[in-house]
């Protein structure tokens, strides 16, 4: 018999980033008992790293903004494979969710008349991102955390969930272990909200932390839920490239929002060379106009550096491939040049982008107020994820909800900057609300002891394999990351992805043999071994979905199908088949209601 501690909650929220915290707060407010688990300490989730801001059509800086424009921008950015209901709700509700943060103590930067200040970001027609310098995520997670701790939520920190427990086809709880002592924990719950974030650790160059091993995606998949559009991975155009130890660390888009420009080694602003047709009417013709835009000129159009991330990332890859890159395989991002336009530019940069200044100074010995940064694409975000109902955030499994980065739909084929933090708030709240409602109406569930024993036994297996230091879980993880980066990265082709599938199979065998040393107490080797199966599952889902989508759209670019194909205006779904094999299908997107269609037409 496995030894474990049992916890009972009406609603269990897995993940304590913005989405999980917001869901827990909402569920607790409706009177049900709530448990919140996370792999790290409270307040350390990815959300804390978000820099640029949270998108909401508050119209504080430009009064032409409203939810309809935000909706149209989100759909255009997502290349129209978004869940339009989510895009609508998100645009309508984001302003209220942001104001609510202020009522809970958040202090956003201010406009001259004392309201919340908003900044420009790629793909947003008007200045829309509420922010605090370049540490918006910290402000957000701290506000939610400090509000949440007074709501009677039971927080279980440094606990990793290994599997979801089922009662028939309904979710009944979750099983995991505490990282500190390695003891098993059973969480019984009537409803479960997944808010586990992304998958960046499947790639070698990433802005994401060790936590991002796609756990929520894998948990949902094994519980029978459908995943959607897993091929849409966002490669952020600007990650650090040098020195090697910081490769992948994010350089916020805020740098470009404040006037930073991209140049190749010849000093050319190459972004002017390739402006996509559907953005031409919104893009500046001259550097002069672009600069005016960043300085708040309402009649100017945005510089091409602020085109959507997928496009900017591909332009950078092109420059590097064609031999016009910087010494370490990136391009230059220059904010120092604004000294030609602004008095006290150095001070201005330090005030607007304090953590970028700090980051380059300390990690790369570069003073961004005088010297251009070297940047290149980094794996940043996954648009695809757990398929959910737009209104309630329930997955295809009854009682199982998903919100935030691990859920799919809002962003379609490409996410606009700032739309994630607002996503967390809007759909975190909704998931919490509907999970609580479900829990109130639900019968008690039964836990299947066999399922639990099996999970525990598998989890302890790595200890019984005598691991050799040469082939531990870390080596397998690294090889997977390198392979995914090379074969299922920014530019994809069928043959390479077929090789990746083979590779995933072999890595799976190696993962099943990799042993760990030491005991169960805070043992990163063991933790990594337990994360590996999730990484392998989602890598396979990404690869198979990417093979299935034979076109290029948003974050998914196929060298062998370079154009967008209207026949692929659909969602690609992944489900676990009866024999345990991965099954793919194509799902038509319901037709847009006339009101929404009209908005899109008007704003074309």
């Amino acid at each position, binding site marked *: 018999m496995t030894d474990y501690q049992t916890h009972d909650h009406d609603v269990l929220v897995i993940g304590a980033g913005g989405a999980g915290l917001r869901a827990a707060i909402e569920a607790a407010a409706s009177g049900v008992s709530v448990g919140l688990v996370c792999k790290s300490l409270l307040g*350390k989730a990815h959300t804390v790293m978000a820099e640029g801001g949270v998108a909401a059509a508050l119209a504080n800086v430009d009064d032409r903004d409203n939810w309809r424009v935000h909706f149209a921008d989100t759909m255009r950015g997502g290349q129209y494979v978004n869940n339009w209901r989510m895009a609508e709700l998100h645009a309508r509700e984001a302003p209220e969710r942001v104001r609510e943060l202020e009522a809970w103590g958040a202090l956003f930067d201010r406009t001259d008349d*004392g309201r919340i200040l908003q900044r420009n970001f790629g793909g947003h027609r008007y200045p829309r991102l509420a922010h605090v310098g370049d540490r918006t995520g910290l402000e957000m997670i*701290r506000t939610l955390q400090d509000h949440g701790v007074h709501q009677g939520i039971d927080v279980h920190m440094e606990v990793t969930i290994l599997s979801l427990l089922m009662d028939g086809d309904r979710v009944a709880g979750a099983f995991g272990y505490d990282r500190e002592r390695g003891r098993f924990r059973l969480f019984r719950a009537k409803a479960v909200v997944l808010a586990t974030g992304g998958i960046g650790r499947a790639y070698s160059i990433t802005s994401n932390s060790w936590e991002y091993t796609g756990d929520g995606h894998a948990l949902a998949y094994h519980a029978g839920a459908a995943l959607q559009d897993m091929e849409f991975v966002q490669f952020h155009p600007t990650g650090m490239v040098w020195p090697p130890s910081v490769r992948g660390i994010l350089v916020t888009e805020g740098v470009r929002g404040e006037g930073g420009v991209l140049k190749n080694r010849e000093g050319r602003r190459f972004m002017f060379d390739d402006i996509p047709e559907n953005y031409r009417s919104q893009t500046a013709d001259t550097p002069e106009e672009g600069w005016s835009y960043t300085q708040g000129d309402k009649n100017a159009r945005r510089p091409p550096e602020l085109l959507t991330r997928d496009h900017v990332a591909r332009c950078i890859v092109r420059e590097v491939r064609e031999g016009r890159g910087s010494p370490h395989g990136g391009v230059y991002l220059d904010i120092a040049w604004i000294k030609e336009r602004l008095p006290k530019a150095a001070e201005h940069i330090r005030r607007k982008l304090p953590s970028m200044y700090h980051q380059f100074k300390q990690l790369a010995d570069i003073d961004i107020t005088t010297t251009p940064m070297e940047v290149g694409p980094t794996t940043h975000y996954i648009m695809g994820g757990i398929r959910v109902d737009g209104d309630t955030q329930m997955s295809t499994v009854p009682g199982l909800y998903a919100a935030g980065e691990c859920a799919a739909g809002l962003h379609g084929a490409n996410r606009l900057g700032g739309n994630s933090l607002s996503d967390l708030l809007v759909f975190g709240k909704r998931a919490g609300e509907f999970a609580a409602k479900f829990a109130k109406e639900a019968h008690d569930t039964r836990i299947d002891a066999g399922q639990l024993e099996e999970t525990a036994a598998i989890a302890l297996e790595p200890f019984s394999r005598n691991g050799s230091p040469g082939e531990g879980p870390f080596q397998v993880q690294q090889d997977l990351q390198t392979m995914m980066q090379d074969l299922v990265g920014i530019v994809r082709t069928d043959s390479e992805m077929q090789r990746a599938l083979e590779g995933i199979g072999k890595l799976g065998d190696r993962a099943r043999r990799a042993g760990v040393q030491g005991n169960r107490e805070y043992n990163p080797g063991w933790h990594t071994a337990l994360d590996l199966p999730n990484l392998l599952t989602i890598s396979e889902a990404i690869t198979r979905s990417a093979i299935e989508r034979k076109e290029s759209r948003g974050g998914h670019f196929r060298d062998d199908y370079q154009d967008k194909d209207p026949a692929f205006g659909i969602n690609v779904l992944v489900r676990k088949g009866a024999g345990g094999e991965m099954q793919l299908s194509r799902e038509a997107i319901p037709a847009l209601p006339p009101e929404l269609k009209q908005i899109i037409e008007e704003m074309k």
Partner: protein
Amino acid sequence: MAVEALKPDFADTGEQLEKQSASHKQEQVGRATFRVWRGDSTGGKLVDYTTQVTEGMVVLDAIHQIQADQANDLAVRWNCKAGKCGSCSAEVNGNPRLMCMTRLNDLNLEEPVTVEPMRAFPAVRDLVTDVSWNFTVKKRIKRFKPRPPDAPDGTWRMAQADIGRVQEFRKCIECYLCQDVCHVLRDHHKHDSFIGPRFLVYVAALEMHPLDTENRIAELKEAHGVGYCNITKCCTAVCPENITITDNAIIPLKERVVDEFFDPIARLVRLVRGKR
């Protein structure tokens, strides 16, 4: 356009770049030894590991390399690797530091580099300590309570100039390095009667928040033990976010306590004029 700003010579060749980094601090490339504390709540010892050092590495990279190649079970916390999450706090050569922001070229690699867990908190394993006390302290501090909204749409108006100070405090990444270095906690173990610099900063952020209407002065004196702080400023010296903990947060709080409890006139004035 600003092509000159690009400094074409810098953009030019890898050779130039080598020169550029040589002109910075001395880059060591080679091997270095790390003397890492290994153990748990029952005790432990320093263990030497030698590993490859390459350009730009930070202490956390070295620890990860050792973990991947030599000691898979070496316990360490981290998340962002960019000084944003406050997970990787440790004592490097005896100094409380974020490992991810401590460059190896700032250390003397001729000697072994010691890496130990924060000493003001109970050991869990290796570099991981039990910081749960901090989370219970925060819960005891009275929550934010805003005044009624200023505008009919439920929003408030605040000038940027009036929130700068509080924004400074809100930069805190909860790394607890200040808690680690404060002698009241580290040497005198006053965890029951003193909340420590991190939470004095937190109280200050609430007290100086333009919208807040709560009063936390009585607790500051009693339960939070602000009087224990004797302004050594060690906390300010280690804060990776450069928060001026002592001068900007603790001293003003001490003054408020004095006003409230020992200066009846100031108190009366405040009663008449509202909180501040």
